[in-house]
């Protein structure tokens, strides 16, 4: 419960109709795309940096925790207001402020949809590269918070490689700028620190993004395999050969079946795995590169190769990949997307052991991966209405993360840590490592007000004297 007096102070900043505190309204902000729930104490809609500052000042004064929220597509519980804090809703701050073609950058507010960035740039022949699967529905502010990835990040890098500068409201309400136009900023790389900090160090209110020319040519192909090992070996061979395709996406048989059931994308149902390989760049040399990639597929026992000859054929290949989550979602009432990363060479072994975990828990798994990055997305099927299922799916997901860590990988690829994986941080960091991260948090947010209980595990928080 937030005291009426505080609600009035918040209303004085943003207007009474932009403060929600009725239970029914709050219940629509107690979730994101992860499994857990946390009822916020209030929801405040903001429309400008000044309003964010004003709201944060009130909450800081009152020592009430808060969390920024954009579109709520977070997969790790990152925007849940643990402990009844205040949700600061950023979705209305959705303006494209400036497109600066000569300097190849754009200035935007955090609520702009990822896909709308490229839509705004498309008439000029430019685009924004990181393309998370949720790009239609997720906001760039959330992408910055989570350091989001996507299929094309194998070649172009994740969000942090595309953020040049940030305007940030610090946890005490002061608005500051990190970074800016130049490639090498004097002083500490605080922009780099903020990207991926999941709203725990401050609230991003403006984002200066790097933009890219649309590629002159694109070549997309589908490679069909009888074993996951052959598909994985192809990926490793392509990377080892020094090639940098735009995407190296893999889907396993369970996903292929689901895709065929729901949209008949033309994937062979008996294949163990398919790869979607895409080259982009200059027209010149594209054919040679494609030939070379095809050779590598053949050397690794590819069963069948389909090269898209037209834009329609390209779209058809991608339709199966982009619809994969959707297709899988028809197999069971719910699914949990696990998100871990392993060294590419250990993909086949990891997949086998993911299968073992799945069988042990009696929860089916379908696999989609950004194979080039070694980033796995096992979709674990369950029924969220059953308490027992919910417990088992969380446990199975944790085992898969432990597996990734054991394989020499890590517990996240692109979905963030949030509250889902805060404890899993221990799988890859020791107390000393975590303590160093705590120092950063304490330096920015000594009161632990800004999205508390996320990213870092609880025990370390308690040791440091912070709130939980």
């Amino acid at each position, binding site marked *: 419960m937030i005291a009426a007096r505080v609600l009035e102070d918040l209303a004085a900043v943003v207007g009474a109709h932009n403060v929600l505190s009725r239970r029914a309204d709050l219940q*629509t902000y107690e979730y994101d*795309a992860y499994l857990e729930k946390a009822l916020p104490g209030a929801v405040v*809609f903001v429309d400008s940096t000044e309003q964010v500052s004003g709201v944060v000042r009130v909450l800081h004064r009152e020592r009430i925790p808060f969390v920024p929220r954009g579109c709520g*597509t977070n997969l790790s519980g990152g925007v849940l207001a643990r402990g009844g804090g205040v949700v600061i809703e950023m979705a209305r701050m959705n303006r494209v402020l400036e497109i600066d073609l000569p300097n190849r950058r754009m200035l935007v507010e955090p609520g702009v949809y990822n896909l709308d960035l490229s839509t705004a740039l498309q008439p000029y022949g430019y685009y924004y590269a990181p393309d998370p699967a949720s790009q239609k529905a997720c906001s760039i502010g959330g992408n910055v918070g989570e350091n989001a990835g996507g299929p094309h990040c194998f070649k172009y890098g994740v969000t942090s490689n595309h953020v040049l500068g940030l305007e940030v409201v610090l946890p005490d309400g002061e608005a500051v700028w990190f970074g800016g136009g130049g490639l090498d900023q004097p002083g500490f790389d605080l922009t780099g620190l903020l990207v991926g900090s999941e709203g725990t160090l401050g609230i991003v209110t403006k984002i200066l993004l790097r933009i890219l020319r649309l590629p002159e040519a694109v070549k997309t192909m589908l490679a069909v395999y009888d074993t996951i090992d052959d598909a994985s070996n192809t990926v490793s061979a392509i990377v080892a050969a020094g090639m940098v395709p735009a995407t190296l996406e893999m889907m396993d048989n369970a996903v292929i079946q689901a895709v065929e059931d729901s949209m008949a994308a033309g994937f062979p149902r008996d294949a163990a795995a398919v790869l979607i390989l895409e080259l982009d760049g200059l027209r010149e040399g594209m054919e040679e590169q494609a030939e070379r990639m095809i050779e590598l597929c053949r050397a690794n026992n590819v069963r069948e190769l389909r090269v898209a000859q037209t834009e329609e054929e390209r779209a058809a290949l991608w339709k199966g990949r982009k619809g994969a989550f959707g*297709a899988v979602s*028809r197999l069971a009432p719910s699914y949990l997307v696990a998100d871990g990363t392993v060294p590419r060479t250990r993909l086949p072994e990891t997949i086998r052991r993911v299968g073992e975990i799945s069988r042990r828990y009696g929860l089916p798994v379908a696999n989609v991966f950004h194979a080039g990055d070694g980033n796995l997305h096992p979709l674990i099927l369950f029924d969220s209405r059953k308490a027992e299922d919910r417990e088992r799916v969380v446990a199975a997901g944790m085992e898969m993360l432990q597996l990734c860590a054991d394989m020499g990988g890590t517990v996240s690829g692109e979905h963030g840590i949030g509250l889902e994986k805060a404890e899993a941080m221990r799988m890859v960091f020791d107390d000393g490592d975590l303590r160093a991260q705590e120092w950063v948090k304490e330096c920015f947010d000594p009161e632990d007000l800004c999205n508390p209980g996320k990213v870092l595990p609880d025990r370390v928080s308690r040791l440091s004297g912070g709130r939980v």
Partner: protein
Amino acid sequence: MGSERISALAPLYDEVAKCGKCGFCQPTCPVYRTTFREGHVARGKNALFRNLVEGETVLDVDLRDSFDHCLLCRACTAACFPAVRTDQLVLAFRETYARRFGRPTLQRLIFRGLLPFPDRMRLVIRAAWTARRLGLDSLAARAGLLDMINPKLRNALEIKEDVPARFLRDRAADTGLGRPSARTVERGPAPLRVGYWISCGYNYMLPEVGEATLEALRQIGASVEILGNACCGLPVYGYGDRDGARSLARRNIELLGDLSRFDAVVSECGSCSGHLKEYPDLLADDPEFSVRAHRLAAMTRSFSEFVDPLLARTADLAPPPAAPDGDPDRPLVVTYHEPCHLGARYQGVVTQPRRILKSLPGVEYRELPEADSCCGAAGSFNVLHPEVAGGILARKMERVAAIGADVLVTECPACLLQLGLGVRRAGLPVRVAGISELVVSYSTGQRRAGSDRNGIRGGVE
């Protein structure tokens, strides 16, 4: 009593459990794009609905805001991987809520005492329109009388600024349009015998569009009989009064009588034709009416759905090149707004109206971005939530302005009124026209659709 009432929602538990809260419904929801309130998008409604079923929340007035803010446009379901039918959840909520807390008296009176009876409707609306023309409405508004009945009525005054002196049914009777005609042309194995479904929107608000429909059907060579139907029942259904909607469906089937005298039942109202096609679902468990509902649905056609194949295959019916006014070399730029109940998410009538418009000589057809996104009318949504509807409409108008259309065509009276309001507010030099108006104006050589009318739906010249 609470648990007993809410158990009415339990059959939809499987449906709502499919929602994985991914958020893909947000960018396609016209309401969410205007308010950015999670309670106004499908995901929020699904969450509240699920909480209700699981006993995590109680059925009370606080939930209404969320379930009231739905256009029933189904854009969420179209964007949803597991295709959660949030429209069905909203209807079930509205029904359950009304059962618990009762319906407003005015609503009950209209649903049960007025809509099923065309004669009463005619009298009441005639009285209302007469009052309006005499300026009594603004008098009543000033005196606070309108607010006593329902403050929302004020919003309706802006949507429709003037009212027709005579209704379509009366005008058609005067001119002889809509009487079975001897001019019936043989086409294929049987003549085209059309039952014209008279929508309330055209009858009481936009009779001139209804006349254009009748004229277009005549030109195609159909023999047209105006049906004696009452309200199709969609507004009643939309308010979650399923029983009321069922009785209206039955009543209409009775009013239509023997359907074997028609080859098709045609309506230019996307909502009516869409809802008639849902009669079989509505009456599925009614042994007496189920078969007739199927029969009616099977022969129901939206105007463009009916006309498109005839225009396409009959060269002699292609509209003659029009005598252009103004610049003879500039094509008339026409665009199209797809009514929710007509388009991809309800009837699937998508290509036909566009093909008709493209076939008109001297027309340059430009596809409106987000053409299938709701305009905000949605029955009485624009009366009940004028600010939200206005935001939705403003977004639509930005797109209309950007593509530089001369004429904005659609196939639904509610959309026509709403879009007309939109161009007036935005000050756009755009004419809003029913699709039959354009077809007819071409056939009769008037180039500018609706330009000779004292444009209730028109924009700024």
